[in-house]
């Protein structure tokens, strides 16, 4: 067994599952809209880790890497738009608490 084969796929799946669960918790439980976005980033990272791990261990080509790159790209676009929206919400409501944002007409 070479050094680089030393770690089973399950190690990566375990880390990815933990990141996904923590991301779900953050997304559901947090009140602050920015903190909820952090949860989304955790979930995207866990999905990416799975893509790359399966690409390395079972698929044997670079398709998982390409998917991970496109996910990273969409995360960047999402973060930029979300920042704009969060700043807009803060200007209108003076708060980014998800419980306070209950008006349909700002």
């Amino acid at each position, binding site marked *: 067994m070479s050094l*680089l084969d030393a*770690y089973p*796929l399950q*190690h*990566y*799946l*375990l*880390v*990815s*599952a*933990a*990141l*996904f*669960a*923590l*991301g*779900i*918790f953050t997304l*559901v*439980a*947090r*009140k*602050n*809209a*920015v903190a909820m*976005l*952090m*949860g989304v*980033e*955790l979930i995207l990272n866990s999905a990416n*880790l799975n893509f*790359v791990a399966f*690409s*390395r*261990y*079972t698929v*044997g080509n*670079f398709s998982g*890497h*390409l998917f*991970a*790159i*496109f996910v*990273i*790209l969409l995360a960047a*676009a999402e*973060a*930029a*738009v*979300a*920042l*704009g*929206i*969060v*700043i*807009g*919400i*803060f*200007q209108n409501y003076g708060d980014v*608490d998800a419980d306070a944002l209950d008006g349909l007409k700002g």
Partner: protein
Amino acid sequence: MTTLTSALYHAAFYADMVLTVGSACVVAFSKNIVRSAFSLLLTFVGVAGLYGFLEADFLVATQLLIYVGGILVLLLFAVMLTHRISNIKASNETSFSALAALAATGIFLVLVEVGTKTHWDVKGGPLGESTRPIGLLLMGDYLLPFEVAAMILLAALIGAAYLARNAIRK
């Protein structure tokens, strides 16, 4: 390969796993949103390290440049711009945290069960250096997604600037 190098390699791998999951726990459970944002930095660096152990060298650089250098800075801007410094201690409240913890634990257990019990068809064998094949694939099989991604980035840039500008003018 000497035993010392091997031991260091193993230590680095498990330290990286602990760093990633531990800092993600801080993101999820910290009372202070600034602390959450900064430990998200460690999570991203930890995931970049795991990419390194998976021999995805291009993705290590991409993760560091885009997540750490871009998305995290954007999130920090969002935290700092939408924050009242006076109530920084209680800036990151949770609601329904028992239900959310229950749901997250359930999802975690299901994922671990699926991941460990399934017999994965592991082929093994490192993929080798990845930058050149990724570039060739982006210009070949993945040309259409590549171009669509460029349009999405352009649209997101314009949209984000428009949204933020209107908000700041008010």
